[in-house]
């Protein structure tokens, strides 16, 4: 099937709702309306309001109800419309769900999925456009997943739902209409496995979510302009991180750059650079390059927002400058 990212999400939910009769989906405008990004379209019609539950605008309650219900083994996928809104209820993610298994000495676990989306690019200004994944990768007990393609979205969402731990599933608003091939059959993708989206033997470019596509475009341009063959790794999961794939590629290529949409300061690039330097230092021919968003809120004005988001040309320029390509 050649379907969109949003359709892949809805398909994964639909298949899991059919498979697990105790699974429910809750969130704002996810019912008859089908979600503001249409990622729950068609679910209400098939499963009814008992299982596809519209909620008031009450992020703490949405997340807490999902935690409480999942604790009893009845899995819940809770949707928070924007990752920016998660700040309103993130006690339930950080202090409750993520710590429950540990604090209870293993007696309880919370098999819940918190679905949300982040990222800039639709002229929604500073409170609807953030990339906050780095906050959450800092929390032990929580898994953080960020698919970039329809194929990955379906397979990873199924894994997230079947996981025994809380999973934060971060989609990207600019990806919902992108299309790709998705098998009709039941498949899962292991959480914590990165994917090589482009093989290459000169420089390793590591990225996540929407920025994978700008990185792929940059890789093509680097090849055209400088004859450099880049490998592009899509992390897919932020926590756990697929250290093995990262290190393997660095050992092979000896040069590495990390590229993400989120602000450079405190972004996931620092963590990856540190892993590379501690586990593959002897294989590095060059310091690790980190490329990230500017340390500003996301602006409203279209031209300013475009300037905020890293594009392929900027990535090419930074890679060429850093590795002194000519």
């Amino acid at each position, binding site marked *: 099937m050649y379907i969109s990212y949003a359709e892949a999400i809805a398909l994964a939910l639909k298949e899991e709702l059919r498979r697990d009769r*105790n699974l*429910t989906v809750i969130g704002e405008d996810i019912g008859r309306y089908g979600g503001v990004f249409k990622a729950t379209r068609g679910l209400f019609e098939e499963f009814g309001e*008992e299982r596809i539950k519209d*909620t*008031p605008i*009450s*992020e*703490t*309650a949405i*997340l*807490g*109800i*999902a*935690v*409480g*219900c*999942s*604790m*009893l083994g*009845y899995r*819940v996928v809770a949707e928070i419309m924007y990752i920016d809104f998660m700040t*309103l209820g993130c*006690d*339930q993610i950080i*202090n*409750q769900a993520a710590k*429950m*298994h*540990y*604090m*209870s*000495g*293993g*007696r*309880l*676990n919370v098999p819940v999925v918190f679905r949300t989306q982040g990222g800039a690019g639709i002229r929604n200004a500073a409170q609807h456009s953030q990339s906050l994944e780095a906050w959450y990768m800092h929390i*032990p*007990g929580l*898994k953080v997943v960020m698919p970039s393609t329809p194929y990955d979205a379906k397979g990873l969402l199924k894994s997230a739902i*079947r*996981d*025994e*731990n809380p999973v934060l599933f971060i989609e990207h608003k600019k990806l919902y209409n992108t299309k790709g091939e998705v098998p009709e059959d039941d498949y899962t993708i292991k959480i914590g496995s990165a994917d090589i989206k482009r093989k290459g033997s000169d420089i390793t470019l590591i990225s996540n979510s929407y920025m994978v596509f700008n990185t792929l475009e940059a890789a093509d341009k680097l090849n055209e302009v400088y004859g450099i063959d880049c490998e592009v790794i899509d992390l897919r999961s932020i926590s756990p991180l697929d250290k093995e794939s990262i290190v393997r590629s660095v050992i092979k290529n000896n040069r590495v750059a990390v590229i993400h949409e989120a602000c450079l300061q405190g972004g996931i690039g620092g963590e990856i650079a540190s892993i590379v330097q501690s586990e593959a230092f002897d294989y590095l021919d060059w310091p690790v390059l980190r490329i990230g968003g500017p340390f500003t809120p996301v602006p409203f004005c279209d031209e300013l927002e475009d300037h905020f988001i890293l594009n392929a040309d900027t990535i090419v320029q930074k890679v060429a400058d850093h590795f002194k390509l000519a």
Partner: protein
Amino acid sequence: MDFFKTLPLEKKLDLYSTMKKIRLFEQTVFQLTSQGLVHGSVHFYIGQEAIAAGIIACLKKEDYIMSTHRCHGHMIAKGADLKKMFAEIMGRVDGYCRGKGGTMHLLDPDIGMMGTNGIVGAGIPIATGLGYACSNFEKGKAVVCFFGDGAINTGAFHESLNIASLWKLPVIYVCENNLYAISTSIGKAASVSDLSRRAVAYGMPGYNTDGNSLPQVLNTARRCIDSVKAGSGPCLMICNTYRQLGHSIHDPRSYRTKEEEDKWLKKDPIARYETLLKKEGVLKENQIPKIDEKLKEEINDALEFAKNCKKPAQKDLFEDVYKLC
């Protein structure tokens, strides 16, 4: 209806014993803190025992409760194992949470005691989620969500009660109004003096009860639980009481007067209940030493067990961060 009156004699005595067990357990924990055997913050329930005992007496084993940082009373009333409680509070590996939770995170899913929380108000949405699970998958069960007066001004409280009422979830929200959130009195924290009026905003019944009177707590709880189990939706029950000790072990209580404390000590729930039982002829003076002796023995045995438990090994630091799939 006076449900208390209909209770069999043994049940009335059981409730007396439960309250005393909670008190003795906590007095023992208090001693352990001064002996350096319990570390960290401990929040005592002394003075509020009638609430845990009276409400939980109306529940079945399979019904759920959600507690707070002040949880010892709820645990004991729901039937927790004192050995594992002491062991956990002392940070031992045989405790309820293998020494990883402590007094603020005690729980026992086997008896429907689903959690204790270090974040004020955070248990309320989780309990609402338990109610959501019951209404979808475990019909006929009820959830009692305990919290203090400090929690009723959190967003979690407002959001949860609204949804619970909207979805008719089987949850009894029990506010133990002990008059203080650490040092801040309820008069300085809540915009209404009659806290049960908050229920009006969520379209659910609200009840005020004397939290130091076991019969009154029990009667109100019975009514709430019956209504919730009949599918009428949630209710809010305010139990007015007093925290006889400070917020935690470290609290000098400089924000309140000795006169106020003395006034409330005269309304001690155990003493009041004892007087009532004697008046009713249910309890005779000469039975009391026997009851006390039995409780003391149970507490001492449990404490002895806990003292002999090991602390977790260093490698346990890394256990149970994630559940292996």
